[in-house]
């Protein structure tokens, strides 16, 4: 198997990963960045070529990380901690391309996924996540003149709705499940973050004319082969809209699977559910750092601050103690600045978490015949007799499909309070050919 060595490996080339790559490179480490998408930017900076701000941000970070190596279109399917190593598989096309990455330190910038909650009709074509529809539009989906309902929860709703309006879609309404007073309080509190205040104001301007309701959510989606109508609950009344697309997502869930394979501890569901990190963004596994949404949902500014700090810390871990006092002092100052920045952004993230907390009614959207596991077509009613995810999986196949419980697991954690199962390799389905390539010299046991 091909072997790639580096001093710092960064998994994920979104804002946190790019910032980590930049910081680690500047600190003098040999950096390898691995990302599974065709282009860097992660989710929030997807198709950065198309928009000015993200494009500049990506360019600046890549310039700082000019000496780093980038491997796009590769997925990390397995990892081990002592010594540190990753099993990566190239893309979805070239089935024989696997490699083993060796690193002295690792930065996990694996981001987050949307939280999907089931409701009647949610499996119809045309129902996507909020980020999901955004991703496809950035990928070339033409939504001009298409009627779209945006629903769910979180700051993503307004951002995506505004973006859809700009591309010519007809956003029939935005339904935020959080109460208006909570969101208003957040708005008032933005005085402490002027940049965000401006952003917020710009969004609302872009959405002039689009009905925006709070304490509102989707009840059911109707259609034969695809979505035609969506029934919603607004102000205690039912409102029905004819639509071409429903973009519905209920916040973000940290993507912690790779960290968990490495034995990293996670915060509890009530503390953000992300990988647990200390002040220097080190996880509980030595030489493994984490930054960005993977440590807890915080938005792009927190991700950038965390990436810078994690990249610096990882480089220091890989390179060993600084050779001289001046360098050591510079490190100490940089670390202090980094920690302060991270703390500041974390405070904002905590506020967001409280504002957009999911209300209890959302647990009752799914009926007994509503599918929860889309991979294996398992309805909620079939799951109720069980006490945990594993037992339900063995009995009903829920979670046995290719998504490896990423969709249903997050939903059941919210609806039934079930802890998600520990992930096992491979983290995504890969051909047997990729599994066959582990050779002699690979560590056979994992810490």
């Amino acid at each position, binding site marked *: 198997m091909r072997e790639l060595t580096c001093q710092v490996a960064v998994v994920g080339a979104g804002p946190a990963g790019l910032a980590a790559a930049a910081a680690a490179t500047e600190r003098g480490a040999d950096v390898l960045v691995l990302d*599974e*998408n*065709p282009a860097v930017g992660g*989710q929030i900076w997807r198709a950065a070529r198309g928009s000015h701000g993200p494009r500049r941000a990506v360019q600046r970070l890549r310039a700082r990380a000019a000496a780093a190596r980038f491997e796009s*279109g590769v997925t990390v399917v397995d990892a081990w901690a002592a010594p540190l190593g990753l099993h990566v598989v190239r*893309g*979805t*096309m070239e*089935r024989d391309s696997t490699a083993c990455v060796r690193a002295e330190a690792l930065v996990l910038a694996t981001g987050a*996924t*949307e939280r*999907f909650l089931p409701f009647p009709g949610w*499996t*119809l*074509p*045309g*129902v*996507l*996540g909020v*980020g*999901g*529809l*955004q*991703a*496809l*539009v*950035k*990928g*070339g*989906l*033409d939504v001009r003149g298409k009627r779209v309902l945006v629903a769910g929860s979180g700051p993503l709703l307004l951002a995506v709705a505004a973006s859809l309006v700009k591309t010519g879609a007809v956003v029939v309404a935005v339904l935020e499940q959080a109460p208006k007073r909570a969101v208003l309080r957040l708005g008032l509190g933005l005085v402490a973050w002027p940049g965000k205040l401006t952003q917020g104001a710009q969004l609302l301007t872009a959405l002039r004319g689009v009905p925006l309701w709070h304490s509102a959510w989707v009840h059911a989606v109707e259609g034969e*082969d*695809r979505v035609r109508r969506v029934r919603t609950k607004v102000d205690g009344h039912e409102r029905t809209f004819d639509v071409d697309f429903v973009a519905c997502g209920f916040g973000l869930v940290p993507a912690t699977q790779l960290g968990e394979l490495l034995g990293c501890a996670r915060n509890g569901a009530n503390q953000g559910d992300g990988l647990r990190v200390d002040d220097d963004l080190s996880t509980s596994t030595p030489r493994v750092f984490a930054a960005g949404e993977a440590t807890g949902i915080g938005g792009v500014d927190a991700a950038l601050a965390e990436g810078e700090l994690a990249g610096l810390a990882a480089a220091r871990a890989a390179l060993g103690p600084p050779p001289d006092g001046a360098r050591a002092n510079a490190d100490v100052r940089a670390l202090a600045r980094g920690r302060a920045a991270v703390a500041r952004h974390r405070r904002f993230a905590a506020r967001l978490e409280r504002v957009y907390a999911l209300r209890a009614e959302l647990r009752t959207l799914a009926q007994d015949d509503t599918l929860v596991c*889309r*991979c*294996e*077509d398992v309805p909620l009613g079939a799951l109720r007799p069980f006490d945990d995810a594993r037992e339900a999986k063995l009995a009903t196949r829920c979670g046995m*499909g*290719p*998504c490896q419980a*990423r*969709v249903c697991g997050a939903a059941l954690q919210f609806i039934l309070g079930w802890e998600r199962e520990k992930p096992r390799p491979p983290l*995504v*389905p890969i051909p047997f050919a990729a599994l066959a390539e582990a050779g002699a010299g690979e560590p056979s046991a994992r810490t």
Partner: protein
Amino acid sequence: MREAQGGVVLSIDGEAVSVPRGTNLAALLVGRASGATRTSVRGEPRAPLCGMGICFECRVTVDGIPHVRACMTLCRAGMHVTTPGAQGGRANA
């Protein structure tokens, strides 16, 4: 009107389609009339949900290779894509 920056021709279920270079395959499939990418275990039409590679609803066969996530794939010239839902609704899952 989106300008085609050097169009790319590929085939979807036997039909030739031209798209701008860099178009995401899932974006192309969702934009079609049916919008479906696969048929579920119980025979229902399904289409992309997450757009970022974790829901696996967008699995299609590309150049003979099954279970390729369309949302992680860019359209390439000469690409041959089939969606099992086109084959009489047989469950692909």
